[in-house]
């Protein structure tokens, strides 16, 4: 049972209170962008075996969206952070680096 701490209400919510929202920090490529960028934006999702950054929603709770840094290979949770950011904050990066030195995820790294 996956347990994530909601950064807004502080609840250690087990996953039945939560809804998974897919890849974090997506950048939208719409009209005016190249076919390639539009295709990747629509259809290619990060699917790493290891460190992953995701969006989640505390749907049966305070209702807020937030972010989680997780390992898909071990289900270990490195930390959760607020939605109002387009990059993982430094303390979260440090937490990941402590456990997975040399990690990278899309354009981000430890």
């Amino acid at each position, binding site marked *: *049972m996956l347990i994530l701490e909601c950064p807004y209400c502080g609840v250690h919510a087990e*996953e*039945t209170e939560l809804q998974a929202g897919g890849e974090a920090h997506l950048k939208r490529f719409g009209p005016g962008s190249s076919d390639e960028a539009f295709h990747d934006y629509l*259809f290619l999702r990060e*699917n790493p075996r290891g460190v992953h950054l995701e969006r989640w929603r505390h749907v049966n709770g305070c209702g807020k969206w937030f972010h989680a840094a997780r390992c*898909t290979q071990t*289900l270990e949770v490195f930390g959760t952070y607020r939605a109002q950011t387009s990059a993982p904050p430094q303390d979260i990066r440090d937490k990941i680096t402590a456990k997975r030195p040399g990690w990278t995820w899309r354009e981000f790294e430890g």
Partner: protein
Amino acid sequence: MKRYSAFAVAREGLRYHSGWDRAWRAAAPKRHYDVIIVGAGGHGLATAYYLGKNFGITNVAVIEKGWLGGGNTGRNTTIIRSNYLQDPSAAIYEKARSLYEGLSQDFNYNVMFSPRGVIMLAQTEHEVRGYKRTAHANALQGVATEWIEPARVKELVPIINLDGPRYPVLGGLWQERGGTARHDAVAWGYARACSDMGMDIIQQCEVTGVRTENGRVIGVETTKGAIDCDKLGMVVAGNCSVLSQMAGFRLPVESVALQALVSEPIKPCMDVVVMANTVHGYMSQSDKGEMVIGGGTDGYNNYTQRGSFHHIEETVRALVETFPMVSRLKMLRQWGGIVDVTGDRSPLISKTPVQNCFVNAGWGTGGFKAIPGSGWAMAELMATGHSPLAEAFSMTRFKEGRFIDESVAAGVAH
């Protein structure tokens, strides 16, 4: 290789079964193969088999990081059907289903194909319309299915509750020649036949890198050393993104956990497969008497081969509604597999941006039924560069807007 026969069973019975051969050779990797297939699941082994059988290509290695059939092929609930809506799907799944009919004879190995019939229940008006439409589409595609009324459903499945508390049974899509097969026997049968053709099945050997030169594949790195090849087939289901990353490209796939469970064995009570997609559960009875049960996937990326407990609860709840007698059963075992899900819930059988490197993935929650057809098409694509069955499943279809939308057929059911 010695053939299996009634006579052989009798002979071995008289000498303490001391004369059986191993079904396949344990092989150490050679320096070079014409074709390397990564992944000894059903799809990888079937690809190798049809490369040999249909194209005479036998200098082939199938490389497996664990044990053969230990991935989704050995973890699935073995439902076989071909009642898909879109033409390319119906074509490849029906090809697979019809190959299943003769597979045991073809292999001289019993895969226990049991065309006992599959019902997909319609429990909303939307599903009624959808399945009637599928029945019409199937008629045009040459796939034998029919729409049946609730009374006929009850006749086929006496233990069903037609007036469930949430969703009544309004009818069903019935495929009389759908059914099940023994999952690991399918992998073992292919492995035995491949080994018999001289192919190497290399277990406990993980591919850790893909070697390319000028945009063309030249071999792989493995935990047992580097191996060269002219052509490479990646057939690793939930790990396909990891493999494609080694080769330097991305796939439109996400990997999530799907679970199944079986009950204690009971006397025969249901001799067809029933799928209830609205309440999200399905069930069949194995030859051992266990009720084989499955449901939905988890919502998040996962490589751990285990899923979330509450999905089991949801699945069992759905089945208790549909088959009240299930409420008295004890569940014996539960397990998970990592399934590779695409945006349109249809597979990829495709060339890739790397020359001579091919991918077969994205079968998600429903690829067991496709194994023979998928291997057939993948072998043709790898041997000749073109396969009519595989054409629509190219990974370029997303860019081209040619989705094969089976999200109802494969995203939910199996």
